[in-house]
């Protein structure tokens, strides 16, 4: 099976990986001595999965405004990212979807400075296009004939759902508890579930595939997004520049356009 060709490809792949790793470290090294006003090099940002669309857009805008910089993103569940940071992943900035996950990082002493909340997010009921089951309130989800998906209580969107249920004084019996907000949305997009409690931004990002139904009790379950530069940042000045940029009015406009609210 191991023909000369496959071995050759493997060797090239390994070589490329080493070369890329070399590039990464050299650009980091080049960026370190730069002054705070003159940002260069690679900035590695760990961000909650729900920030994917907006941060990609902000990254492009930042790179245009600061030639010579490259913003790299790693998106995952905030809990996963927090665990990676406490395990020593080399990164510059952490943007979390909940203060609780940020606390993991600050408690471990891995943050440089105090985290600032830069946006808020709110739950909506995502339903298939056209709202075939005519869902108008959180109470409609308690109908046992209806298939509702919530996030598991251990993840931020799940704890927000629990808070909304408490605010409404009812309990939704889901057919499934999703492990993150995007997975809660998938069955609704496929038409396999009738409703899911997700963030307004996720419903907006999936516009066309799902409709969003606002409900008043979501005001009792608002999620705050904190951002902080990391202590062991390979590119400390870049980290600070990114945090400042995300907190700027220009960035806020992009974030609110995606459905986030000002902090």
């Amino acid at each position, binding site marked *: 099976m191991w023909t000369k060709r496959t071995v050759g490809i493997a060797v090239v792949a390994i070589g490329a990986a080493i070369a890329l790793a070399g590039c990464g470290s050299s650009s980091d090294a080049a960026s370190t001595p730069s002054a705070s006003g003159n940002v260069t090099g690679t900035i590695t940002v760990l961000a909650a999965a729900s920030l994917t669309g907006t941060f990609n857009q902000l990254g492009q805008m930042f790179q245009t405004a600061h030639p010579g910089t490259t913003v790299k993103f790693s998106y995952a569940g905030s809990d996963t990212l927090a665990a990676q940071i406490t395990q020593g992943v080399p990164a510059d900035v952490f943007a979390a979807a909940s203060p609780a996950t940020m606390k993991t990082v600050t408690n471990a002493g891995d943050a440089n400075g105090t985290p600032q909340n830069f946006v808020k997010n709110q739950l909506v009921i995502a339903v298939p296009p056209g709202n075939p089951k005519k869902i108008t309130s959180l109470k409609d989800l308690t109908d046992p004939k209806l*298939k509702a998906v919530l996030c*598991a209580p251990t993840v931020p969107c799940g704890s927000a759902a629990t808070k909304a249920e408490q605010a409404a004084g009812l309990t939704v019996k889901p057919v499934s508890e999703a492990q993150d907000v995007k997975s809660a949305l998938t069955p609704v997009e496929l038409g396999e579930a009738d409703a899911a409690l997700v963030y307004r931004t996720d419903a907006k990002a999936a516009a066309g595939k799902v409709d969003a139904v606002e409900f008043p009790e979501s005001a009792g379950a608002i999620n705050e997004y904190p951002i902080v530069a990391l202590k062991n940042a390979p590119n400390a000045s870049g980290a600070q520049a990114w945090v400042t940029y995300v907190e700027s009015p220009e960035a806020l406009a992009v974030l609110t356009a995606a459905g986030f609210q000002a902090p």
Partner: protein
Amino acid sequence: MSQPSQQYRRPPWVLLLPAVIGIAYLFLPLVGLLVRAPWSTLGQRLTEPGALTALRLSVITASITTAACLVLGVPVAFVLARTRFPGQRLVRALVTLPLVLPPVVGGVALFTAFGRRGVIGMWLDRWFGIQLPFTTTAVVMAQTFVALPFLVIAVEGALRGADTRFEEAAATLGASRWTAFRRITLPLVAPGVAAGSVLCWARALGEFGATITFAGNLPGTTQTMPIQVYLTLQNDPDGAILLSLILVTVCIIVLVSLRGRWIGTG
């Protein structure tokens, strides 16, 4: 009965060194889990109702899955190994597809086939009112989808290695093809079937992606042990380590005890 001594000569260094490294590589992460596990909370973890419910569901569904894989997989292996038909190569490639498909994609694929909008699920719902997603049946279906290739590959390999002259002799003596399969072929490939079942069971026990997608996650109904491990990892990594070790322990106990009985090399 003493084995001939030549069979147990020291292997050449060229093989021994990578073998030791390979074993250590597989073994060290497990050692890491053992070292990091918060043993003092073991009793408390085991008595938590959630953990045992999830473990029981995992063991039961993995066992049903293995039975389903045997019923479906052995015939598939037989057809692939002992017959010739057009498009056989393609069929063989498709059978192994779940091995390379990311399990989460497998879960979505099951939706498109058996969901209430799926090509078959739509009619199941319309004619019989059966909705498969988010049920314990869906757990077994997801596990079967990812575990079946392991059984098929193991049994097909065994069938190809088996000596067909015994079957031919049986046929000469008047045995029907079914009798020859049951009395001659199946006993010949029994070690392969056993090894495939063990792999199949272990794969089903650890299944996560396809299950959480197609069957969802609800304690008692569809929350298997790997799903509970993942969710525990979100806010209690130490607890997740302990739960993983419980899963690993159960798996080792079952596999070691079966190995001696079925395969005869324990």
